[in-house]
């Protein structure tokens, strides 16, 4: 039923497109009826799109995470006792995990950001270059994030 309707509608539109009749009000409705897909869960994102949205998500995440880093910096510079406190906090699992997650966000954002700057300079802007760049971002980020974890633990 729906299929039939859609088919008829499609035919009508094709007719309007192939045989435009200026002055007929229906032409306007062709544009108005254009389907808009706002259900993002039905979209399949290719790798460059995933690295792009991760760049934004990591940006928002580290914007909040800066509070953690400023807090550690403030405490570590406040006094000798504060510095020792920070060292002791960094020995606990949850603070390590918190700092590691912020570092992970920073490293990803940095690496994806470098790719962004390279693309501004017309490097890796083709379709193939974009796919390759996205792969490199993932590889370098995973490496950097794992190394940061090794460093913290």
């Amino acid at each position, binding site marked *: 039923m729906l299929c039939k309707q859609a088919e008829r509608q499609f035919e009508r539109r094709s007719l309007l497109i192939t045989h435009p009749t200026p002055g007929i009000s229906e032409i306007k409705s062709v544009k108005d009826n254009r389907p*808009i897909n706002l259900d993002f869960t039905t979209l399949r994102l290719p790798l460059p799109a995933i690295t792009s949205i991760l760049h934004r998500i990591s*940006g*928002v995440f580290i914007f909040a995470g800066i509070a953690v880093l400023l807090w550690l*910096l*403030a405490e*570590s510079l406040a006094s000798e006792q504060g*510095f020792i406190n920070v060292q002791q906090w960094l020995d606990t699992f949850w603070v390590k995990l918190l700092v590691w997650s912020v570092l992970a966000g920073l490293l990803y954002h*940095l690496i994806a950001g*470098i790719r962004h*700057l390279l693309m501004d300079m017309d490097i890796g802007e083709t379709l193939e270059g974009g796919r390759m760049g996205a792969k490199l971002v993932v590889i370098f980020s995973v490496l950097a994030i794992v190394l940061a974890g090794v460093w913290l633990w």
Partner: protein
Amino acid sequence: MVSSVTGLSRNGVADWLVQRVSAVVLGVYFIGLLGYLLMNADLDYAQWQALFSTTWMRLASLLALISLCAHAWVGMWTVSTDYLTEAMVGKNANVLRFLFQAAYILLIFIYLIWGIQILWGN
């Protein structure tokens, strides 16, 4: 676009450039600080405090802090005007977006004041 009044410079091209220049500053500062921490695994308070009491480190840190504020402003503006729209979140989008923008600008202000206090308060 009406929403551009909440951008950083009211000018898309200027915002674009601010985003890039601040990104380079932040990248250099972050890599430099990370490298310093990696090379000084047995860091103690005296050494750490001495580093942050030098004028050049304070200025470099202040430059990074200001870059962070500008970078976050442009980035959060981009995100808020892309996703907090009527098509995405419904009729109250304008109010929601304004409140969200007010919140992150307040947080940027807090970071700026707090950072200056850390750098010059000790």
